[in-house]
């Protein structure tokens, strides 16, 4: 039943994505850390795919800091509340204090349920049970409901649900000169693809010479982002080429794409008490109970 639900959900999502994407562009926005590997991009539930991590002081309480992790790239407009977290996964903020060199504190999230009634459980902040890439859950701090903000008894405020994707980048221009980073140019997890070399990359710097000097129009393969003022050239050296002047695209905003977000606002004291340094080195991971 769960499988059927996922398949149907996946088909609906894909169908909607196609409709939306066709509506604004001939391309699907496959970007940056969005759709990070073939396997992550092709999972039936893409909440294992982290798109961005943020760390900033709380705008509303100076005693707190905010950690945010966005997952599930490219959720089409209007479909945010129909996308849910994969209950077989563990999401973690891992923290290394000062010069410890490895994780010495973790904040973990796990999920039960598969629909709008999902319950998200926060574990920690606590010292990890294990250092390394195979992990178990630390003691829980409480539960929150999907798409609802809740403050737990330890003072940590938690949100887990759909949000607008705040990442801005002209992905299409990027892929025009580094096609390897476009997920759709690969056919399997092990497919090396063919577009890893930056087009004319070794000659892209100042002082480079090109077989055909002149404008971008005369050298369509020359790497360039879009949106430059007419007359802007890659360098001032003889033989330089003109940069693109067509309009750039903020692809994720233009496409109206959303993500699923975990946002945890944590009292600073919970991240410093018992540790020798207030300097945090932070990364986010997703772990799977199935190993894939």
């Amino acid at each position, binding site marked *: 039943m769960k499988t059927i639900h996922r398949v149907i959900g996946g088909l609906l999502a894909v169908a909607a994505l196609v409709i939306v994407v066709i509506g604004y562009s001939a391309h699907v926005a496959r970007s940056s850390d969005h759709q990070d590997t073939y396997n992550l991009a092709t999972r039936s539930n893409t909440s294992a795919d982290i798109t*961005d991590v943020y760390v900033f002081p709380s705008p509303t309480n100076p005693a707190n800091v905010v950690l945010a992790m966005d997952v599930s790239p490219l959720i089409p407009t209007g479909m945010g509340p129909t996308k849910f977290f994969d209950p077989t996964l563990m999401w973690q903020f891992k923290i290394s204090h000062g010069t410890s060199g490895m994780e010495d504190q973790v904040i973990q999230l796990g999920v039960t349920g598969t629909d709008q009634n999902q319950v998200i459980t926060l574990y920690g902040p606590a010292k990890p049970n294990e250092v390394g890439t195979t992990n178990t859950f630390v003691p829980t701090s409480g539960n929150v409901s999907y798409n609802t903000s809740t403050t737990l008894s330890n003072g940590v405020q938690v949100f887990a649900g759909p949000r607008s994707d705040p990442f801005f*980048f002209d992905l299409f221009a990027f892929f025009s000169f580094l096609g390897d980073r476009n997920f759709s140019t690969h056919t399997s997890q092990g497919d090396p693809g063919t577009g890893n070399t930056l087009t004319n990359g070794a000659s892209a710097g*100042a002082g480079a010479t090109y077989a055909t000097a002149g404008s971008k129009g005369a050298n369509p393969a020359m790497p360039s982002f879009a949106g430059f003022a007419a007359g802007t050239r890659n360098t001032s050296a003889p033989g330089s080429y003109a940069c693109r002047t067509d309009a750039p695209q903020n692809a994720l905003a233009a496409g109206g794409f959303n993500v699923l977000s975990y946002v945890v606002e944590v009292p600073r004291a919970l991240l410093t008490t018992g540790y020798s340094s207030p300097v945090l080195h*932070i990364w986010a991971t997703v772990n799977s109970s199935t190993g894939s």
Partner: protein
Amino acid sequence: MKFSIYVLAIGALGFGLAACGGGNSVNTVPVPPAPGKYIQIELLSRPAVKELFEKFVDHQITNAAEPYADTTLQGEIQTFTDALRAPNATVGSDYGKALAGVLYPNWITADISQTGGAAYLGNETGGATSATHSTFGGRAVTDDVIGISLGAVFGGTLPALHLQPEDNEENNCLSAENVAQDPTQVPTATFPYLHTPH
């Protein structure tokens, strides 16, 4: 000391277009973990580091590694950059080595004893990336992380910060992307601070 701090700062900028070789491509068959155990399949910290420097097929290696034990990413940052801005003994530049030094280990640094605002690489650069010179670091939702990264890899950020000598290998067409954050992407004033979905 100051030099090392700045170098670290720039590394976080992480942008590169790699023509790199290197990289041990893998296609492993996952082994199911024991009950209650979860195996890492994805990792992200500094934005765009994997995407810019590392071959797509090698992302799975970084995703399964600790950010302080990932020689594949570390090596590809350097080789990718070297292909664009080769070490120049005449001027004494080595942008690849400098960027690899900054971007590795692959994590976001924040000094939460600081009361200033967040700014990507603000801690590593002694506040150079912050409009208010805050050394909190971290990453704000509004930070132009791509612009910072492009400036470091393709532009003149490193020589401007006196982290590397001028090598005259900037590319104006790649050192900026000319895209700003859309109003629907700007954070809100109240928790959870991320804009409601489209």
